[in-house]
């Protein structure tokens, strides 16, 4: 059927395109379905994986140092298991046997670095022993489980006299022992490590008298993976709730089905693309696909509502209604999709591989909405039976429509305008006050990924309570030449460095080569306390190192110093990884390093969990403002082209900026920090507001062409497009808020945050934007007044 009826001249091309899509429906549909089938196949190949390396800003100096030395001095992926006894001490035959067997169990867990296990039951934890003839030997504390009470007493004596053990891996009250294991980054299989640690380290040794607590990043991700199946429940329940809500709104199952098709097709394209470019899904990023799908569904609801409206206007002619709704909503839908897709791309600025991959996949996924929502949409409507006319009319008679009508009248009145501006101005001022508390990095000592009372955080708190700190910051002392670490001055500087940084309230304790040399020196001098110092000469130091390390293979000694004695490290164990604490500790380290240069070596920051988190936080701080600016700038540029007006973008961005400030203030008040997990969600969230605004402004322009009166046009836009926006926002907020039931605290908090974000953006676009338009009468809208809709084909 040709386009043989009158259509608006300026949209003739869009009407023609809509009509042609229906005319060539078979090849278009075959092409889209074939491609969707391919993407669907790929999307089912997707796996749930977190790649630790991808979470780090690989170009940052700290991460380069971390990567260079993590294989020898220890990385960020430590598991710390603590065995604590309720009664008595760990120094009994039974308890020491447990520690020994736990250590053996940990040594067989997949991915463990066998040379980087610290426990009194492991061969690498040694003490100095004076052997017959006065020679000194460095021997493991426990070569086997104790068999007699004498063995137990001997182990206790050794522990109490070893500076590298007592207080560090055995608590000062003798009630707890630590087992610290480092995992090889390339072999991190969180799920497998979690299960094997449970089987080999936790379950066989836990009983009424003995408690086992396990913390550390691999353990944390293991818990997150174990909770990931929650997501299916959340998705199923939200799907059902959304279906019911859409069915109630449209009074028709087609209204429930059509947005689902859009969401599912876009999801296949997005998920398939993620697999296609060699990525996997991160369990902490599962809110993201949900959010993009929600956006696809939101566009589809707008289109479906408009289709019903046009169906009535077009005298119940289905094909004309399909073409008209396609053409009339093309600009706001396409513009909304493009602004979202390009807005997300600014995340590329942060040099974190995971975020860059996410930016590309999210952008592609959002662009895929154009296929499912615009290309396929007219064809889907063509094949669906036309809705019953009475249902189309019924949708305009319900209590929802009456409520919107009543509120809109009040809102556009003089009092309403003043009240709206007053409330928004106050809200922004209050938010600006609170937003100063926004943290970069994690704002709490416990892990924000899981709930405070979760087994992980309970373990973490118990270990911190007994040992003071478990999260390592590794500062490398890189020598300029061989034997640099035998230089007395270098070792003394390392010791001073330890004492200086230990004064920070968030540092539990520290360890370095200097501690070993002092302890060995004392043993060499018959345990006289006055010899607990670093010797003055290279030869003395070399001799003592020889005594201590001579019985150990280089693979074992490498965790303290490299075989040529060129490079060693100072490791600080922090009590938490709060953003503020990390920033302060790193600043103290940098100050000390600057004020205490060494002749033979230089300190290099920084490895370990604290080091890499510091790097990530620094990159976020460096790029956050720029990213925000570019995000808004991108949206403004696209809006300028959409409405051929420089000011159009400003009107649409004003409510968005206000919403942004309020949401950031909420994050500050609720202690939600900006980190590599929250950042992309927050950036994608920005787009929601712009979509709502686009539909309202486009409809206002359409209305003013016919009505010429701005107030009436705004009113009409709010009770038509605004009604659909209200319904969309309500369903999205309800379903997103359902994420608060997740066992993964991060997903729950992000769900709630996004629900709040959507609510504020919605309120901004539905209240502040129309009032700004009414008050300032922008030229890009006013110039359309009276241009009339040149026939409408109705």
């Amino acid at each position, binding site marked *: 059927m040709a386009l043989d009826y009158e259509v608006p001249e300026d949209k003739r091309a869009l009407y023609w395109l809509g009509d042609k899509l229906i005319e060539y429906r078979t090849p278009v549909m075959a092409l889209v379905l074939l491609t969707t089938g391919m993407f669907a196949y790929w999307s089912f190949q997707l796996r749930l994986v977190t790649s630790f390396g991808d979470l780090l800003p690989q170009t940052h100096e700290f991460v380069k140092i971390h990567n260079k030395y993590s294989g020898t001095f220890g990385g960020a992926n430590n598991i710390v298991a603590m065995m604590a006894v309720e009664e008595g001490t760990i120094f009994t035959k039974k308890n020491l046997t447990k520690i020994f067997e736990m250590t053996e169990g940990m040594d067989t867990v997949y991915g463990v670095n066998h040379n980087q296990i610290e426990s009194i039951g492991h061969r690498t934890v040694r003490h100095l022993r004076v052997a017959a003839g006065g020679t000194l030997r460095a021997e493991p504390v426990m070569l086997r489980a104790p068999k007699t009470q004498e063995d137990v007493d001997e182990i206790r004596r050794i522990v109490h006299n070893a500076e590298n053990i007592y207080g560090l891996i055995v608590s000062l009250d003798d009630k707890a022992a630590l087992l610290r294991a480092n995992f090889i980054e390339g072999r991190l299989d969180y799920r497998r490590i979690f299960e094997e640690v449970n089987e080999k380290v936790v379950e066989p040794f836990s009983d009424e008298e003995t408690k086992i607590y396990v913390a550390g990043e691999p353990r944390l991700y293991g818990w997150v993976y174990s909770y990931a199946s929650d997501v*299916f429940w959340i998705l*199923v329940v939200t799907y059902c709730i959304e279906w019911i809500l859409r069915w109630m709104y449209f009074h028709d199952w087609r209204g429930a089905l059509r947005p689902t098709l859009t969401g599912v097709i876009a999801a296949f394209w997005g998920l398939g693309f993620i697999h296609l470019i060699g990525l996997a899904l991160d369990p902490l990023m599962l809110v993201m696909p949900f959010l993009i799908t929600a956006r696809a569904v939101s566009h589809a609801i707008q289109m479906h509502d408009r289709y019903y409206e046009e169906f009535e206007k077009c005298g*119940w002619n289905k094909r004309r209604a399909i073409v008209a709704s396609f053409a009339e909503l093309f600009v706001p839908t396409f513009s909304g999709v493009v602004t979202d897709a390009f807005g997300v791309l600014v995340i590329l600025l942060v040099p974190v591989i995971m975020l860059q991959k996410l930016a590309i996949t999210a952008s592609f996924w959002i662009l895929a909405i154009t296929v499912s929502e615009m290309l396929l949409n007219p064809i889907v409507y063509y094949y669906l039976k036309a809705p*019953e006319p*009475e249902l189309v009319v019924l949708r305009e008679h319900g209590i929802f429509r009456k409520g919107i009508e009543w509120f809109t009248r009040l809102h556009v009145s003089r009092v309403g305008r003043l009240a709206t501006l007053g409330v928004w101005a106050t809200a922004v001022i209050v938010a600006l006050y609170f937003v100063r508390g926004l943290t970069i990095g994690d704002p709490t000592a416990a892990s924000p990924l899981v709930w405070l009372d979760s087994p992980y955080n309970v373990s973490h708190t118990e270990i911190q309570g007994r040992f003071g700190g478990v999260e390592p910051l590794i500062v490398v002392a890189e020598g300029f030449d061989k034997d640099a670490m035998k230089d007395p001055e270098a070792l003394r500087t390392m010791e001073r460095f330890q004492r200086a940084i230990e004064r920070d309230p968030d540092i539990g304790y520290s360890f370095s080569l200097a501690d070993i040399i002092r302890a060995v020196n004392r043993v060499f001098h018959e345990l006289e306390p006055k010899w607990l110092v670093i010797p003055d000469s290279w030869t003395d130091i070399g001799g003592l190192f020889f005594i201590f390390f001579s019985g150990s293979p280089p693979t074992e000694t490498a965790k303290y110093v490299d075989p040529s004695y060129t490079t060693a490290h100072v490791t600080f164990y922090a009590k938490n990884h709060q953003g503020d604490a990390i920033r302060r500790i790193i600043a103290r380290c940098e100050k000390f390093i600057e004020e205490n240069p060494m002749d033979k070596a230089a300190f290099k920051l920084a490895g370990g969990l604290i080091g890499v988190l510091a790097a990530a936080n620094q990159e976020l701080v460096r790029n956050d403002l720029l990213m925000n600016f570019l995000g808004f700038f991108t949206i403004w540029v696209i809006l300028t082209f959409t409405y051929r007006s420089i000011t159009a973008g400003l009107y649409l961005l004003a409510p968005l900026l206000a919403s942004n400030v309020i949401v950031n203030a909420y994050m500050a008040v609720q202690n939600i920090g900006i980190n590599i997990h929250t950042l992309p969600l927050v950036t994608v969230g920005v787009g929601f507001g712009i979509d709502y605004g686009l539909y309202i402004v486009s409809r206002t322009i359409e209305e003013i062409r016919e009505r010429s009166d701005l107030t009436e046009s705004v009113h009409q836009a709010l009770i038509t497009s605004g009604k659909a926006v209200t319904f969309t926002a309500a369903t999205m907020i309800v379903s997103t808020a359902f994420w608060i039931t997740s066992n993964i605290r991060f997903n729950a908090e992000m769900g709630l945050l996004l629900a709040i974000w959507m609510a504020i953006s919605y309120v901004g676009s539905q209240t502040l934007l129309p009032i700004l338009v009414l008050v300032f009468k922008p030229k890009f809208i006013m110039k359309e007044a009276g241009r009339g809709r040149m026939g409408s084909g109705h």
Partner: protein
Amino acid sequence: MELGIWNSIGIVLGFSLFVIALDEYIAKPWRKRSWERRAASGDKEAQEMLRIAGSANVVDE
């Protein structure tokens, strides 16, 4: 009960079919009967709905 991908797909498909059947075979006939009852008792809105349902010339090519 732990959900995986396939039983989740099963539940959402089943639920969608249930809603479609509920709408086509229960809700719509019930709504129409309700309007007829209300129209018979003089309700203007119900009469209008029935008028639209009866007079609209739907072109569904």
